[in-house]
């Protein structure tokens, strides 16, 4: 099952070439001081705001918190100067879009930030039309 998932992901990546794992590869700053690699966060929520500006794009979504209540989460993405080269625009994640993601949770107590995400639409398809979904690498 796991091998099949990996092979499917590799085939999808080979056909398109648009990266959906939005690790901030253009490193404005290290993620380690802000996000804990041991703190895995899984979310599904609705986009309320997409800040597509350097040094890092940020996505705001409403999703359930630990108590099950809907609250705001902030997702740190890569630098727009690099994201544009793979097809992202300020309209890539419009308000109201449903997304599903897995990433690293923020360190500061009570904060709801996530980075280094694997993100798709709610149905599992790539965020960008014709894009690919890449599995998260092991830390």
């Amino acid at each position, binding site marked *: 099952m796991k091998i099949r998932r990996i092979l499917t992901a590799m085939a999808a990546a080979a056909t398109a070439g648009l990266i959906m794992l939005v690790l901030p590869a253009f490193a404005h*700053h290290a993620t380690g001081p*802000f996000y804990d690699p041991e703190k895995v966060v899984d979310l599904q929520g609705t986009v309320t705001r997409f*800040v597509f*500006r*350097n040094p*890092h794009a940020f996505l705001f979504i409403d999703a359930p918190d630990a108590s099950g209540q809907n609250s705001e989460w902030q997702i740190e993405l890569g630098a727009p*100067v690099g994201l544009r080269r793979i097809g992202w625009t300020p309209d890539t994640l419009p308000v109201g879009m449903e997304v599903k993601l897995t990433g690293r949770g923020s360190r500061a107590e009570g904060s709801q930030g996530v980075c280094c995400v694997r993100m798709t639409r709610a149905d599992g398809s790539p965020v960008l039309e014709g894009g690919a979904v890449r599995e998260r690498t092991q830390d």
Partner: protein
Amino acid sequence: MKELITIKTVRILAVMAACFAFVMGLLMPQLNAQGVDSHIPDLAGIWDGTPRVRPVNGETVPWGENNFPDLNARARAYQEVWEEIMAPKYDCQPASSPAIQYDPYHMQLTQWPDRVLFRYEKDDQLRTVWLDGREPTATDFSLQGFSRGYYEDGSLYVTTTHFVFDIAGFDDYNGIPSSSQKVITERYWSEGEELRLTLTVEDPMFFNGDVSYTTRWLPAGEGYRLAPYDCDPEASRLSVQFFPSKYD
């Protein structure tokens, strides 16, 4: 008749003068502010320094086990106080040397007779390297300092001084500051399709001796143009709230 000869003579002389000027233009060595005997390497272009070309910067890159500076007590005292969110980059203050050369973005190098221009995609920065021998004055302190250079043996050599104090000016991953005594020397040369750099830092205010790194760029993709960076203050500070400060 006399008039005809005069006009004809003038025409002949004019043609001879034009030919002479053309031949001299071909024979004259390329003029530059440096002098007539220097060899000027062709380093101009848009260069790719992204992760496809070299390891991404971090706590051990480009300053690692083999080239980490020998910090003095003053620098170690700063490190005790330091935490990540003190870095001025979270307020969009641009990077400077030695970090900006290694930031994983594109860079454009333009060669003019009296100067070389480095334009960095990261933070929209422009460095001017003067080739005409001018000296800095006391009013030339700045974030990018004052750069002077020359060509020799197929390389561009650059010396930069007059940097303003910067709390993270040597390396913000390790919280090492830089002072107004910082001196950066760079050597740029081409090897095959690569642009190469060896950069050396001295800063007796904070470490002993000098330290260096060597890196490279590859030509940018066909048709690539540097994009505006336009650092946004809000986007820059958004991650700060996720940092557990030791001062809270």
